[in-house]
């Protein structure tokens, strides 16, 4: 470690926030850009599975809540792109990388939303898992990221409650609604567990991120915490988690549970999820179809600037 690196690490260890203009290791910057960018992309792509039910939301109030939620997600995308921009990478560059496939978004959004309870499950499980990841990141070492996370976490926990509220209505509703709720849980359970990523016990990468406080907990820690939190919620709903191996382990003070099918995870990451092509395709189409709009605004700004100058 160079003296600079050592000083940097000591600041991190002391819990100081690193600000954009301050010196940082290149690896720290790169890892942050990748992590924040991927998170931003996830917010943007994440509009799509939920957007799929806005026009079909079952009441005006549910429609309004869902619209507000999707709006928040786009807003989160905005905060995060801004945080990434402080590291010297523009939103357009990040978008370009999303569109050409060189940056990823959270794999969970490659699963379809097939019935209204899925909107509940996304709030309850997907936002629940996201919060589990994000709450510790409020203490991350990079200032702008930490501050973005603080804002985001506040809204996400609201979203999670709304999701759980939908699940509650469905689980306590007609037999058909109950079946939808169970179906949604069945389909979203393992993909939600996958959101924490594969076990990182052997990953050097993870260890470095933890040292830098870009990552606060291991994937397995967070996954266990998520399961422990979610199982009683499912019980309260009267729904069954689709895992025959799920049981309370007194000794460890947590649940034993089945690992998700990691081969599916890697398939989805590789592009072979149920909706990869459609999700990315929708974003690329939006971007390409909107080129004239963005160009029109720029041209106007230029003309207008010139005129004012003249």
């Amino acid at each position, binding site marked *: 470690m160079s003296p600079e690196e050592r000083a940097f690490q000591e600041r991190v260890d002391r819990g100081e926030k690193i600000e954009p203009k301050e010196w940082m290791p290149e690896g720290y910057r790169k890892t942050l850009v990748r992590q924040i960018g991927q998170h931003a992309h996830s917010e943007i792509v994440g*509009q799509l599975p939920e957007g799929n039910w806005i*026009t079909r939301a079952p009441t005006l109030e549910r429609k309004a809540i869902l619209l507000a939620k*999707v*709006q928040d997600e786009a807003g989160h995308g905005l905060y995060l792109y801004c945080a990434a921009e402080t590291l010297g990478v523009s939103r357009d560059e990040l978008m370009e990388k999303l569109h050409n496939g060189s940056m990823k978004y959270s794999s969970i959004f490659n699963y379809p939303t097939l019935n209204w309870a899925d909107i509940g499950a996304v709030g309850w499980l997907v936002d629940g898992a996201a919060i589990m990841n994000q709450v510790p990141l409020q203490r991350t070492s990079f200032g702008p990221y930490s501050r973005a996370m603080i804002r985001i976490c506040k809204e996400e926990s609201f979203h999670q409650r709304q999701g759980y509220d939908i699940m509650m209505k469905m689980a306590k*509703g007609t037999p058909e609604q109950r079946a939808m709720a169970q179906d949604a849980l069945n389909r979203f359970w393992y993909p939600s567990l996958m959101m924490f990523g594969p076990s990182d016990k052997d990953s050097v990468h993870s260890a470095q991120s933890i040292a830098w406080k870009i990552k606060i907990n291991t994937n397995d820690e967070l996954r266990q915490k998520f399961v422990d939190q979610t199982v009683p919620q499912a019980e309260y709903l009267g729904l069954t988690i689709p895992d025959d191996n799920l049981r309370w382990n007194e000794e460890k003070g947590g649940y034993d549970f089945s690992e998700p099918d990691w081969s599916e995870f890697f398939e989805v990451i590789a592009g072979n999820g149920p909706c990869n092509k459609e999700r990315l395709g929708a974003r690329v189409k939006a971007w390409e*179809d909107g080129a004239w709009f963005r160009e*029109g605004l720029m041209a106007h700004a230029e003309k207008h600037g010139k005129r004012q100058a003249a």
Partner: protein
Amino acid sequence: MGALEASVDRASLFEFALRMGDNTLILGHRVSEWCGHSPVLEEDIALANTALDLIGQTQMWLGLGGEIEGKGRTADSLAYLRDAAAFRNLLLVERPNGDFGQTLMRQFLFDAWHLDMLKALERSADSRVAEIAAKAGREVAYHLERSSDLVIRLGDGTDESHRRMQAALDDLWPYTGEMFLADAVDAAMAEAGIAPDPASLKPHWQAVIGEVMGEATLTVPDSGYSHKGGKRGVHTEHLGYILADLQFLQRAYPGAKW
């Protein structure tokens, strides 16, 4: 208020509330179709916000409608359990989204009318109407600010953005006349001081349109032809498809709570 209700035909007031609420419901639906598909993140946010405002206004107008009708129908049952012929929105708001320019132009043409209408309704003899109008008016003032600004910037942008905005204006123009046509319901509302005579809104609307189009370097069509029918339930073929999606869950699972 009781006195007022007696003095005006309840059925007309109900119709009027439906017209306001169906406009916001159907336009809100169309706008919400863009979620996640717009040209730039700021627009995703703005469109979701506009749709959200419109759905909120729908709750108020249709809620009032149900109250006036007095048969136990709620904003939700009015939104979800009427078929196309019972809808009272302007044809303009059910036009397909088209490209983003068409969506924006539709929004601007509607916003300009909507704001003037709401301003007039703030002085309604019916305090419930006035209250909703005041609340909605604040939101719609912002909608108009945004849509007029974008129409100007895109009209006076590149050749392509100009061309698209002009095409959108030409396309949608024949759907604007309906906003100013009056029928017996409108006459009853005007008579009772509840709502303005639709024709009275036209001069200011035209002035706003003229000014914005001037700045946008766009040409206001001189065609006088108007599509009409929405206010009395004769819609375009698009509305049926909108309702098929909008109402699916309520139709498929009658009586369920969500």
